[in-house]
């Protein structure tokens, strides 16, 4: 008997309006666990190479894991995967909230969406039943309106809705998929894929909860986390959100500023977590922000999500649309040298209403700001907008123009790399893209293993694909027990990019890769500073599934399997090591603060890439997994 999962995958053919339910056995779930690896299985098996990301032949998979929905913090997350319209490579995006647990309760572990509906529809899944419903009346609606409409017409306000906004309908290449109108599977343009299929939303509700193998063990683990949260290293994350890290990044020169030309921002204190907590969180004026201004995901005690409400001034913000994360205050803030917190919150609101990734959107705008400030763009290009560094008003206007694909916004909706190619004039020099995806707010010129991960990661720059350098470096507190369990017993010289750093990079990449298949939150679970460590993840899987022989070796193997599957997906699309590129800007020195003068060295990076590919067991020259490696991982079927 299966515990933790249903053993049911819902297949939807939108072109024909047909459904099928597949029931894979336990071996399938043990091999892929769920989430990203499970999604990759269907993309590799069923999608023809060379598919146009915005045509019906693309496949969109929404996948949960074997532990999604269990009553413990950090598990209610979902993978959205398809071929990316932003990068042309594998698209993969993780998001949390309440929808994932509710989809599990509705009776399925994943939904595989193929084809294209002849008209706008939404998918309604409830207690094992499913149907497509007309969505013409909500096509064009912003997320909050569409969500409310669906709940009202289905007569249940507890229905969870995952949807695209107008940006996804408009094929903005970095459109995301949103639940609760404020939780994003933001990256790699999965919302544009969903829009291309005329699928507006997936609504879910149900009471079919899979059994838990050992409720006592699960409860013990959950209670331990709740009891230790306030003393843990994520206590600040709970109170101040991901924005708690702004100050630390400023101090270490790792707060990307002026479109990644500097690692320090004079206005950092105006946009950091404590300032948000004191000023813009809902209830802050009455000192009630801990109760009203923080939100959570299903069964999570951390409550790190921000809820912003601004009722006065030029930028009023509706709490329905949550609040900005650290990434968002950086891309719309320090990247553009903007310290107007209300304007940043407004841009975040627009992204959540229209359904856009705040990282790519803000970073694309910061590319335009640099081009403008360097004289490569003029007001004639920008519809008259003044893109001088720090201009908050133009940033907010541009965000909405992108969502609507209006004027200059239509060009930026293509992403910064396509926009630079279109504009020319040397603006490619201002790009901070990897495989066409804009870099998040973690600085590879200082945390240098990020340079390798950003480059090799199959879906482009991503800051959640391994553990960052400081935890194993000289200057940082050392997590002896947890790192020891991963096979690391000594520090690495600060800023080194040597073989030991690469061994750490590969090892933690596999862990984080597996967590994206288990759909676990990487603040709650992880290698070192998170609430739960690697051994706890094993305990979680055992308690939920009853797989008593499940071990950390299995986690490593699934993590490695997923990375190899992604690399093979990309290889089919013509990607190899030649596309594992680092933008030229990162080889130029940062200016100011603790990271002044820091830059990447090409020879050192190439050497690190050699080591990375060697340690991954891939062909070093091409960066493609070898047949032997695929055989070892049970993936020989991909090339047969």
């Amino acid at each position, binding site marked *: 008997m299966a515990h933790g999962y249903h053993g049911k995958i819902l297949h939807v053919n939108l072109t024909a309006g047909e459904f099928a339910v597949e029931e894979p056995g336990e071996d399938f779930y043990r091999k892929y666990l769920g989430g990203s690896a499970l999604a990759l299985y269907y993309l590799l098996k069923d999608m023809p190479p060379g598919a146009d990301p915005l045509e019906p032949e693309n496949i969109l998979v929404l996948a949960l894991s074997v532990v999604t929905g269990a009553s413990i913090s950090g598990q209610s997350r979902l993978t959205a995967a398809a071929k990316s319209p932003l990068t042309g490579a594998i698209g993969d995006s993780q998001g949390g909230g309440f929808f994932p647990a509710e989809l599990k309760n509705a009776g399925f572990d994943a939904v595989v969406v193929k084809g294209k509906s002849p008209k706008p529809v939404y998918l309604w899944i409830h207690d094992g039943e499913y149907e497509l419903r007309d969505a013409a009346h909500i096509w064009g609606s912003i997320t909050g309106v569409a969500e409310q409409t669906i709940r009202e017409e289905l007569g249940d306000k507890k229905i969870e809705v995952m949807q695209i906004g107008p940006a996804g309908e408009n094929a903005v290449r970095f459109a995301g998929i949103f639940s609760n109108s404020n939780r994003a599977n933001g990256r790699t343009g999965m919302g544009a894929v969903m829009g291309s299929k005329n699928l507006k939303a997936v609504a879910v509700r149900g009471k079919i909860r899979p059994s838990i193998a050992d409720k006592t063990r699960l409860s013990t683990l959950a209670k331990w986390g709740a009891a230790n949260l306030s003393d843990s*290293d994520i*206590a600040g994350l709970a*109170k101040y959100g991901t924005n*708690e890290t702004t100050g630390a990044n400023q101090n270490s020169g790792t707060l990307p500023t002026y479109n990644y030309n500097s690692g320090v921002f004079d206005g950092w204190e105006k946009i950091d977590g*404590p300032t948000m907590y004191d000023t813009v969180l809902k209830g802050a004026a009455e000192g009630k922000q801990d109760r009203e201004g923080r939100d959570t995901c299903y069964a999570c005690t951390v409550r790190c999500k921000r809820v912003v409400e601004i009722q006065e001034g030029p930028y009023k913000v509706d709490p329905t649309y949550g609040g900005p994360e650290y990434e968002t205050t950086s891309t719309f803030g320090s990247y553009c040298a903007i310290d107007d917190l209300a304007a940043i919150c407004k841009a975040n609101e627009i992204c959540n209403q229209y359904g856009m990734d705040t990282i790519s959107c803000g970073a694309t705008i910061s590319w335009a700001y640099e081009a403008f400030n360097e004289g490569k763009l003029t007001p004639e290009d920008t519809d008259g907008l003044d893109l001088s560094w720090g201009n908050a008003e133009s940033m907010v206007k541009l965000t909405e123009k992108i969502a609507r694909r209006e004027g200059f916004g239509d060009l930026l909706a293509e992403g910064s790399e396509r926009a630079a190619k279109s504009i020319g004039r040397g603006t490619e020099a201002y790009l901070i893209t990897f495989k066409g995806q804009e870099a998040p707010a973690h600085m590879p010129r200082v945390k240098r293993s990020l340079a390798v991960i950003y480059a090799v990661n199959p879906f482009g720059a991503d800051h959640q694909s391994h553990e960052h350098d400081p935890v194993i470096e000289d*200057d940082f507190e050392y997590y002896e027990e947890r790192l020891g369990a991963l096979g690391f017993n000594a520090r690495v010289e*600060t800023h080194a990019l040597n073989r030991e750093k690469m061994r750490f990079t590969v090892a933690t990449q596999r862990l984080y890769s597996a967590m994206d298949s288990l759909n676990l939150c990487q603040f709650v679970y992880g290698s070192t*500073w998170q609430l739960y460590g690697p051994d706890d993840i094993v305990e979680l899987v055992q308690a939920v599934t009853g797989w008593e022989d499940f071990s950390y070796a299995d986690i490593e193997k699934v993590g490695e399997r997923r990375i190899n599957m992604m690399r093979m997906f990309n290889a089919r699309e013509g990607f190899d090591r030649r596309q594992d590129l680092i933008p030229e800007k990162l080889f130029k020195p940062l200016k100011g603060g603790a990271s002044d003068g820091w830059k990447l060295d090409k020879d050192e990076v190439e050497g690190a890439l050699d080591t990375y590919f060697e340690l991954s067991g891939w062909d070093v020259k091409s960066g493609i997994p070898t047949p032997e490696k695929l055989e070892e991982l049970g993936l020989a079927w991909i090339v047969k």
Partner: protein
Amino acid sequence: MVNITITPEDQNRKEKILEIHLQLFSILRDKLPPELKGQTKIQLVEGSTLKDLLIELAIDRRVAISVNDVQERDHSRTLADGDEVKIFTSVSGG
């Protein structure tokens, strides 16, 4: 200014008082009155170390510290008059 006087076991070190510029980040800010927003100057007895400072502030969690903008993980480091000490929680992702 918040006057936090460390009283070391060695009474001979009492003669000289150091003034330290302190900045606390994230939830460590809660160690100081809210209106200070994590920043203050404090007085310590000469010879005080980072460990003494952490004890006085009742910070017993894992932290990252910089002294004069240089990372410092040796908590036995003796502080000097005018030092700028910044103390962070350990989260590195985000």
